[in-house]
């Protein structure tokens, strides 16, 4: 683009044009070179996970080249996928994530609709509050939350600590504010005429939301869903604090606490578990990359 303009502006300097395009060709080559280096840096851990997952324990402790698999085996995969414990972690993670995503959407979508379309007393303050809540990290809240739930257990006899479903109550604090925030942005970008027309036609607010806003803002909804799922799937601190029994654990904590036994690290299985734990977000990302990136950038650009 820029070379062309220069060409027009200074037609007498034809010679320069050639050198500039050569410069660009070199710049391109360097770009690919450095990108390749960065890709190697970024992909080394996941690839190494995969390499290790194909090795037997004997090969892992052998003094051979660690970057290569000499005797590929699937024994780690078969060991994990037939272990009830591991399947239990996977099942817990899936259950928690799916329910949390559903809850998050049920809370965030109506709230975002109300905050973006129905002005009411305190709605601007609430929108700010939602954004601020998103900025509060979980590391600030885990201790008081732990104590709170322990006290609820003492007072009412409802045991919540060390039950996987306590995560259903806690995870929304991580997912709802962000999802509400980006849904506000998506809803606000819908032309006002659409919902006016609906209301004039006699649609209720609820109908406006389900018949117009949700279908029109579907890309935003998908982005928010992906976000909520990846956050719930990847969460490590809360399950580490709130659950301890092996049948209550979710994937990340389960892999770390059960596969690492004392000083004995069964690295083949740990890497296999880590890879399987990373698989659901990676698969979603592979298929819905554009939505994923839209959600990522929406947080700071939409609002």
């Amino acid at each position, binding site marked *: 683009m820029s070379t062309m303009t220069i060409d027009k502006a200074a037609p007498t300097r034809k010679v320069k044009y050639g050198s500039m395009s050569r410069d660009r060709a070199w*710049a391109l080559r360097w770009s690919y070179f450095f990108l390749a280096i960065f890709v190697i840096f970024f992909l080394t851990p996941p690839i190494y996970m995969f390499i290790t997952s194909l090795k037997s324990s004997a090969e892992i402790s052998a003094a051979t080249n660690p970057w290569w698999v000499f005797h590929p085996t699937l024994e780690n995969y078969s060991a994990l996928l037939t272990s009830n414990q591991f399947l239990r972690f996977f099942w817990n993670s899936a259950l928690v994530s799916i329910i949390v995503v559903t809850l998050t959407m049920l809370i965030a979508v109506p709230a975002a609709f109300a905050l973006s379309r129905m002005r009411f007393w305190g709605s*601007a303050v609430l929108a700010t509050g939602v954004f601020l809540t998103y900025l509060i990290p979980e590391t600030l809240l885990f201790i008081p939350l732990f104590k709170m739930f322990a006290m609820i257990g003492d007072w009412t006899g409802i045991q919540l600590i060390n039950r996987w479903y306590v995560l259903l*109550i806690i995870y929304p604090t991580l997912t709802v504010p962000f999802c509400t925030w980006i849904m506000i942005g998506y809803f606000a970008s819908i032309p*006002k005429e659409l919902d006016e027309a609906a209301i004039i036609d006699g649609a209720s607010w609820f109908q406006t939301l389900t018949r117009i806003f949700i279908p029109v803002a579907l890309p935003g909804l998908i982005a928010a869903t992906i976000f909520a799922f990846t956050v719930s799937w990847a969460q490590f601190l809360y399950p*580490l604090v709130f659950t301890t029994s092996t049948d209550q654990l979710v994937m990340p904590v389960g892999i770390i606490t059960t596969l690492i036994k004392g000083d004995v690290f069964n690295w083949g299985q740990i890497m296999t578990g880590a890879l399987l734990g990373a698989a659901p977000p990676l698969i979603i990302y592979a298929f819905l990359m554009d939505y994923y990136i839209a959600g990522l950038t929406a947080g700071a650009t939409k609002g």
Partner: protein
Amino acid sequence: MQVGGPARFGTETHGECTMADVALQSSRTTAAQKARKRSGLQNVLKRKSTVAFLMTLPLILLILLLVIYPALYALHLATLNKSMQRFVGLSNFEFLFKRETFWLVVKQSCIFAITAVIFKALLGFIIAHFVHNIPAKGQRKWRGMLLVPWVIPPAMSTLAWLWLFDPSYSAFNYTLSFFGIGPIPWTGDALWARFSVILVNIWVGAPFFMIMYLAALKSVPDQLYEAAAIDGANWWQRIWYVTLPMMRNIIAITTLFSLIVTFANFDIVRILTAGGPLDHTHIFATWAFRVGIEGSDIPLGASVSLFMVPILAVAAVFILRDVNKRGNEA
């Protein structure tokens, strides 16, 4: 008091909003005429503000009960003694100030967050430029590969790093041994352990910066670069006088966001070093966990985590200001 999308939107379209209200109102009055004996409660339930309130009620409850209440409760907890039966005022904090480990944690948290954020931002900026440089149809593929560290749950990818850093089987040391570089104690030595946790954090976070900066780069109009090229600007001047000013807001917001997240990081340090060797890599979150949950001194743990608040608050204020500014510009 305007913040971002919703508030901005409200002022723009206030007039139309009332129009829709009128429409709703009229349909409601005819409905009311048809069913005169409808109770007052039902009318209240149909009012717009009531509907809106009910729609936001779960959100409000969630924020009040599970975010604001625990935050205040943390303040209360921090003033109790270990068995949580006696009010001790500020002596938890006094105790912390007298402990050497605490100051180590403060120092390490700052080093960790600031170094990691600077390098993430730099790396993200550089990579975004390289991706932006190559032809548009190849960009998707590269971007897809470069974002992978961000997609993998950090707890899982840190395990891979832990294995790469393994004292006896480190694949890095194996490779480095060919260059005559002795075995590096990645997580064993205080200095190297600090380096390692920062490295992993950069690895996880740089792709996020890359994506944000790439989006920002794409929004810079080409004409500006053309004009700069005509004026004879070199590549450095183009970055300094065109790219950076145009991206200033995105850079500021992304950096502040990342500062909050990095400062409050838990997963990476916990899994990679668990604070060791000799507490040299503890940051606020991991030390609060060690003291509060593992050491079951909940008040002291709460006090430790409260030290994150000032830094987070400052960052949050700046983010809000920037989001505001952007809202007004648009």
